[in-house]
C-alpha cells in the first residue's frame, strides 16, 4: 500500500468510511481509496489496464444520493459527495461471497503452487475469507499445466478468469493470441489450436496473474516466496533501463520481475530482459583469469594475469598502439574507471564503447535530449528513424503503442523495412537504403516534394510532411540505426536536417546495448572525456585530477580494428566486447584479432573473441556488483548486488584500478562509491550527482540535473549550458532538495561546455545501381547474442533468417517464395531462401543478422556507404 499522498488541488471530495478524501478528477474509487490508505481487495483490476469489473471482489457500498448500493470500485469514478463504505456488513458479506465463489472450484494445491506464499487469492482468503467449505460437489477438472508458449505454462484449474492476461495480450502487447474460450462455468483461457502465445511480452502475464494459473518455465518449482531475497535493480537486457526486482535464493538468481515506475516501464518487461537471468549463473561463467599457453587458455592466478596484462600495456610502442573496445556491459563506475585508465593513465584515445553499429558519440550526446515520456506524450508527434523497437527495445515499443492507441500520439516512421510499429504509424515510409537523410530532408523541408524521394512517392512524402509540420508541442525524434546496411552519414544527415529545420525538436537517440549510453557519458569514445565534453574543451578541467589527457583524437572501433589488422595495435583490450560476433564487418574483426600483438579480454562469459585472447580477466557481472547505469534517455539508476560473483571474478572498475597500480598510477578508488563521487564532482554533465540522489527514488535521475543544465525545449538548438550558481558538490541531496542539488565549482577552469551537435556536411548519395540490390540488415529480439544464448529457455527462440525482397523484385527475378538465391557482395556470398515481402522497399534485400542459418555480417563492409548485393537465382 503506497504512502497516502497530499491531496491534488482540483480534486473531487468523497467520503470513504466517514473520512473525507480528495480524489483526482475522473479517478477510480479503488485508486482514490488506496491513495488515502484504504485498500479494497481486487483480482481483475490492474492499474495499467482498462477496468472490466469482472471478479466483483472490489464491491463496496456506494451512495450517490439514491441510497447505498454495491458497486465495483474499479469501475466507478469518484463523484462529488459520494459516500463509500468499504467495511460495512453488506460490503463484507458480498466480498466473502465472491471469495467463496472463487474458491469452490479452485484446486487446493497451494503447497505445490509457484504462487503459494505470494498469492492474492491465498492472502485474501486469510484476510477476508470464510472458513470451511460448504461446497460438497466435485470441483471443475482440467488437464494440468499446458504449455501455451515456450516460456509460459497455463493451469486452467487455478485460473479465476480475471481477464488480466488476456487484456494484457490484446490491450498492452497487441498480441491477442490467448483468449477466453467457451461460456459461463466452462469458460477458460486458451490459445487457438496450434497457435502458441508467441508474444515477446508473454512473461508479463505470469507476473500479473493473481493466482498460480500462469507460470514461467524458467521458474517452476525453483523456490518458495518465503526463501527468496529481493533487491531492486535495472534491467541490462537493452538500453531502455526498465526497473526490475531480482529474486534470489541460496546465492542464485531465480527471477526478475518488472517494477512499476512511471517514466520508464510501468511494470512491464520484454521476455528477453525478464528471462535473461539464467545467464547469471550459467555454467559457462568465467570464475578466474585465463592466460594463453600455446594454443590454449589456462587458468592463472590474478597476480600473473594482471601482471602479464600490465606488462603488455607497458610494453606498447606508444599510447596510440593501445586500443580499447567495448563498455556497454559495464556500470557507469566501471566505464569511468576504464576511461580514466585508458585516457588518463595509458594516454590512448583509441577507445570506443560502440561496435560500429551505432551512431557517432558527438551526435548521440550532442543532440537536445528527449525523455521517453516526452516521446510518448499525449497528442505528441514522433518521427521514428531507428531500429524496430519491438525487436530491440521491447518496452519502448509498449510505451509507443500505448501513446498511439490510447493517448492520440501520431507516429511517422522512416525505415528501410516495415517494423513492429509500422501498423501503429500514421505514415510508414520505406526508404531506399542509404537515402534516409534525403527522405528526412524532404519531410522537414519548407516546400513540398515534387518527385519520388528515396523510392517513396511524392504524395506519401508530402502527407507525412504535413503531419510533422502540424505537430502540437515539440516534435520528438527517435534516432537510431534502423539497419546495419544503413550508412551512418545518411542518419547523421537526417539529424542535421531536423536540427536546422525544427529547432524545437527533441531527440531520443537509441543505441541498444545495455549501458552503452553510460559508457559514452563516461568518455569511452574517441575524442571525448567523461561528462559529454570534447578532449579539447575538457583538457584543462580534467588535467587537475587526471594524470594526463590524450593529446589528440583517437580511433573509433572501425579504425582500431583496421589499425590492428595492419599490425599497428600492440594491445587490444576487449571490454565485454565480442567484435568477431558483433562487429558488422566480420572479416575485418577477424583480421584485427589476428593482427593485434596482445589481446586482453575482460569478460563474464567466454565468446568467440575471448577464445582468441591472450589474457582473459574474469569480470563480475549483472546482479553481482553494485553501481549505476544510464538508459537511453540519460536516466541514471541503480544496479544492485544480489549474489556473489563466480569464483574470484571482480568488478571491472576494480580491474582497472589494479592495472593502474601495476602501471604506477593510483586511480584513487577504494570502493565503488568513490567512483561515483568523482563522477558527480568532475564529469560536467553529471555534476551534482551522488548515490543518495540516485537512490532517492526507483525512478533514478536524468542527467544533466535540471539545476545544472535546464533542459532545452522549443529554443533554437541547445544553448550553451551555464555553470553559474554552482556551489558545493558535497551539498547533501535528500529528496527534499534534489532539484537544488548543486555541484562543486572546482577551483580553476570553468566547467567546459557540453558538446553540441551542430550539423554535419551533406554526404554524397551513392548512385542507384539498377542491377544490384541494397542490403537491409536488422536484428531480432532473440539472436545468437550472449544474453540470449546463455539462457537455455531463450536460446532456441532465435528464428533464423531468409532473404526478403519486394514482391515486384521477386517477380522480376522469377523467384517464388522459398526458392533459394545466391546473394553476392564485393566480399562474399550466401545462399538463402527468398520471401517476397511488400514491407521491403524495391531494390533492397532484407536479412536478419546474428542468426544461425547465415552470418550476414560477412556481407557487410563498413567502409562502403551502402552494401550492394547481386541476387543470383540459384538453380
Amino acid at each position, binding site marked *: 500500500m503506497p504512502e497516502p499522498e497530499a491531496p491534488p488541488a482540483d480534486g473531487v471530495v468523497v467520503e470513504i468510511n466517514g473520512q473525507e478524501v480528495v480524489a483526482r478528477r475522473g479517478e477510480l474509487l479503488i485508486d482514490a481509496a488506496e491513495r488515502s490508505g484504504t485498500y479494497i481487495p481486487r483480482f481483475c483490476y490492474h492499474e495499467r489496464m482498462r477496468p472490466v469489473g469482472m471478479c466483483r471482489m472490489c464491491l463496496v457500498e456506494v451512495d450517490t444520493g439514491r441510497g447505498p448500493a454495491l458497486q465495483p470500485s474499479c469501475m466507478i469514478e469518484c463523484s462529488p459527495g459520494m459516500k463509500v463504505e468499504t467495511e460495512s456488513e453488506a460490503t463484507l458479506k458480498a466480498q466473502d461471497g465472491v471469495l467463496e465463489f472463487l474458491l469452490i472450484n479452485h484446486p487446493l494445491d497451494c503447497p505445490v503452487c509457484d504462487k503459494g506464499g505470494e498469492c492474492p487469492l491465498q492472502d485474501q482468503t486469510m484476510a477476508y475469507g470464510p472458513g470451511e467449505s460448504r461446497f460438497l460437489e466435485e470441483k471443475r477438472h482440467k488437464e494440468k499445466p499446458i504449455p501455451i508458449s515456450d516460456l509460459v505454462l497455463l493451469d486452467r484449474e487455478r485460473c479465476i478468469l480475471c481477464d488480466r492476461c488476456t487484456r494484457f495480450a*490484446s490491450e498492452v502487447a497487441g498480441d*491477442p*493470441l*490467448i*483468449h*477466453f*474460450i*467457451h*461460456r459461463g462455468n466452462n469458460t477458460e483461457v486458451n*490459445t*487457438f*489450436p*496450434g*497457435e502458441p502465445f508467441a508474444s515477446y511480452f508473454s512473461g508479463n502475464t505470469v507476473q500479473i496473474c493473481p493466482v498460480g494459473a500462469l507460470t514461467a518455465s524458467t521458474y517452476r518449482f525453483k523456490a518458495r516466496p518465503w526463501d527468496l531475497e529481493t533487491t531492486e535493480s535495472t534491467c541490462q537486457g537493452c538500453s531502455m533501463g526498465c526497473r526490475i526486482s531480482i529474486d534470489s535464493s541460496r546465492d542464485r538468481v531465480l527471477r526478475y520481475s518488472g517494477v512499476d515506475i512511471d517514466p520508464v516501464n510501468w511494470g512491464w518487461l520484454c521476455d528477453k530482459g525478464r528471462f535473461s537471468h539464467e545467464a547469471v549463473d550459467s555454467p559457462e561463467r568465467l570464475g578466474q583469469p585465463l592466460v594463453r599457453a600455446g594454443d590454449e587458455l589456462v587458468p592463472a592466478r590474478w597476480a600473473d594475469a594482471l601482471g602479464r596484462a600490465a606488462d603488455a600495456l607497458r610494453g606498447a610502442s606508444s599510447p596510440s598502439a593501445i586500443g580499447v573496445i567495448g563498455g556497454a556491459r559495464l556500470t557507469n563506475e566501471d566505464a569511468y574507471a576504464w576511461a580514466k585508465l585508458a585516457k588518463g593513465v595509458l594516454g590512448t584515445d583509441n577507445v570506443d564503447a560502440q561496435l560500429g553499429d551505432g551512431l557517432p558519440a558527438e551526435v548521440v550526446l550532442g543532440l537536445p535530449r528527449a525523455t521517453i515520456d516526452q516521446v510518448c506524450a499525449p497528442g505528441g508527434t514522433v518521427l521514428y528513424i531507428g531500429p524496430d523497437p519491438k525487436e530491440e527495445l521491447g518496452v519502448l515499443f509498449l510505451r509507443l503503442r500505448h501513446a498511439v492507441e490510447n493517448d492520440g500520439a501520431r507516429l511517422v516512421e522512416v525505415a528501410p523495412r516495415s517494423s513492429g510499429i509500422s501498423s501503429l504509424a500514421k505514415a510508414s515510409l520505406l526508404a531506399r537504403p542509404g537515402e534516409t537523410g534525403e527522405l528526412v530532408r524532404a519531410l522537414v523541408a519548407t516546400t513540398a516534394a515534387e518527385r519520388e524521394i528515396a523510392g517513396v512517392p511524392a504524395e506519401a512524402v508530402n502527407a507525412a510532411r504535413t503531419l510533422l509540420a502540424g505537430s502540437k508541442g515539440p516534435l520528438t525524434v527517435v534516432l537510431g540505426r534502423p539497419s546495419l546496411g544503413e550508412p551512418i552519414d545518411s542518419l547523421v544527415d537526417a539529424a542535421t536536417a531536423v536540427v536546422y529545420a525544427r529547432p524545437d525538436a527533441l531527440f531520443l537517440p537509441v543505441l541498444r546495448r545495455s549501458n552503452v549510453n553510460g559508457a559514452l557519458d563516461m568518455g569511452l569514445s574517441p575524442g571525448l572525456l567523461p561528462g559529454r565534453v570534447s578532449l579539447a574543451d575538457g583538457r584543462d578541467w580534467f588535467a587537475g585530477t587526471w594524470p594526463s589527457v590524450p593529446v589528440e583524437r583517437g580511433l573509433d572501433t572501425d579504425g582500431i580494428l583496421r589499425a590492428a589488422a595492419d599490425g599497428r595495435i600492440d594491445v587490444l583490450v576487449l571490454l565485454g566486447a565480442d567484435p568477431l560476433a558483433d562487429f558488422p564487418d566480420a572479416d575485418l574483426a577477424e583480421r584485427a584479432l589476428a593482427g593485434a600483438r596482445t589481446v586482453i579480454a575482460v569478460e563474464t562469459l567466454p565468446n568467440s573473441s575471448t577464445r582468441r585472447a591472450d589474457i582473459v580477466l574474469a569480470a563480475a557481472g549483472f546482479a553481482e556488483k553494485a553501481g549505476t547505469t544510464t538508459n537511453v534517455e540519460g536516466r541514471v539508476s541503480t544496479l544492485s548486488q544480489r549474489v556473489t560473483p563466480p569464483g574470484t571474478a571482480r568488478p571491472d572498475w576494480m580491474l582497472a584500478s589494479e592495472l593502474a597500480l601495476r602501471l604506477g598510477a593510483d586511480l584513487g578508488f577504494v570502493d565503488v562509491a568513490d567512483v561515483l563521487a568523482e563522477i558527480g564532482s568532475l564529469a560536467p554533465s553529471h555534476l551534482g550527482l551522488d548515490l543518495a540522489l540516485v537512490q532517492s527514488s526507483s525512478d533514478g535521475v536524468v542527467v544533466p540535473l535540471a539545476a545544472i543544465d535546464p533542459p532545452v525545449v522549443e529554443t533554437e538548438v541547445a544553448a550553451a549550458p551555464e555553470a553559474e550558481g554552482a556551489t558545493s558538490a558535497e551539498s547533501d541531496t535528500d529528496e527534499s532538495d534534489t532539484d537544488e542539488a548543486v555541484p562543486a565549482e572546482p577551483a580553476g577552469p570553468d566547467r567546459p561546455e557540453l558538446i553540441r551537435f551542430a550539423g554535419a556536411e551533406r554526404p554524397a548519395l551513392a548512385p542507384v545501381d539498377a542491377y544490384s540490390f541494397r542490403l537491409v540488415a536488422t536484428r531480432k529480439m532473440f539472436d545468437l547474442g550472449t544474453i540470449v544464448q546463455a539462457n537455455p529457455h531463450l536460446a532456441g527462440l532465435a528464428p533464423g533468417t531468409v532473404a526478403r525482397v519486394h514482391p515486384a523484385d521477386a517477380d522480376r527475378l522469377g523467384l517464388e517464395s522459398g526458392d533459394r538465391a545466391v546473394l553476392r557482395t564485393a566480399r562474399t556470398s550466401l545462399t538463402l531462401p527468398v520471401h517476397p515481402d511488400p514491407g521491403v522497399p524495391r531494390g533492397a534485400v532484407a536479412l536478419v543478422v546474428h542468426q544461425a542459418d547465415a552470418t550476414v555480417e560477412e556481407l557487410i563492409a563498413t567502409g562502403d556507404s551502402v552494401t550492394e548485393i547481386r541476387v543470383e537465382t540459384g538453380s
Partner: protein
Amino acid sequence: MARLTPENVTVALEIIDRYPRPKSAVIPLCHLAQEQDGHLTDEAMTHIAELVGVTSAEVLGTASFYEMFKMEPVGRYMVNICTNISCQLLGGEALLHHAEERLGIKPGQTTADGLFTIEDAECIAACTEAPCLQVNYRYFHRISHTEFDQLVDDLTAGRRDDIPPHGTLARVRQHIPPERKAGSVPPEDTSTPVWIAAAAAEEADA
C-alpha cells in the same frame, strides 16, 4: 475443403461490407462456414480471421461462446428438444426421453449413421405450442411421441427436403443492390444525417 470456397468468399466479402467494422461479421461468417461444412472447422476460423483482420484466437473466442457453433462434426439433423419450463409442464422431458430411446443416444450424441444429434434445448420461443422441438432450427409444434417417430422415419427416408442439412439457416440471404445501398456508417463519419440537417435548417428559417 475447410477454408471458405471462392463462392463463399464472395458472399463473405458482401457480408463484411455491410458492417462499419469487419469484426462485426464474425458470427455471420461462422454461420456461413458451418453451412459449408456442417460444422465449424479450425481452418475456417483461421480463414475468417484473415478476412476480418483479427487473430484465429479471437474468432474462436467469439465462436465458442455461442451454442450453435459446433467445433466437431454433428448429425445431418440437429434435433433440439425444449425442456424449459413451459415445455417441461407439458411433457418436454418425456419427449426427450422418448427421443433418446428411439434414437439410442443421449443429448449431445450423434447416431452411428451420422443422421441425428439430439440436444436438451433451452426455451425456443414456442411456449404456447409445447411440447416442441426444432430440426435444424425448423419448428415442430405440439408434437406427440408418434408424430416424433413419424418425423424420424421421414427424415431417415429423405422425405423432408424442406429441411436442409445442419448448418443452413435462412435459405434467402439479404442482398443490397449497389444502386440502393446507403452504405455502412463507421464511427469516424461524424457528419450529421442529411435529413436531420435539412430539418434543422428549415427550423432555422422558420
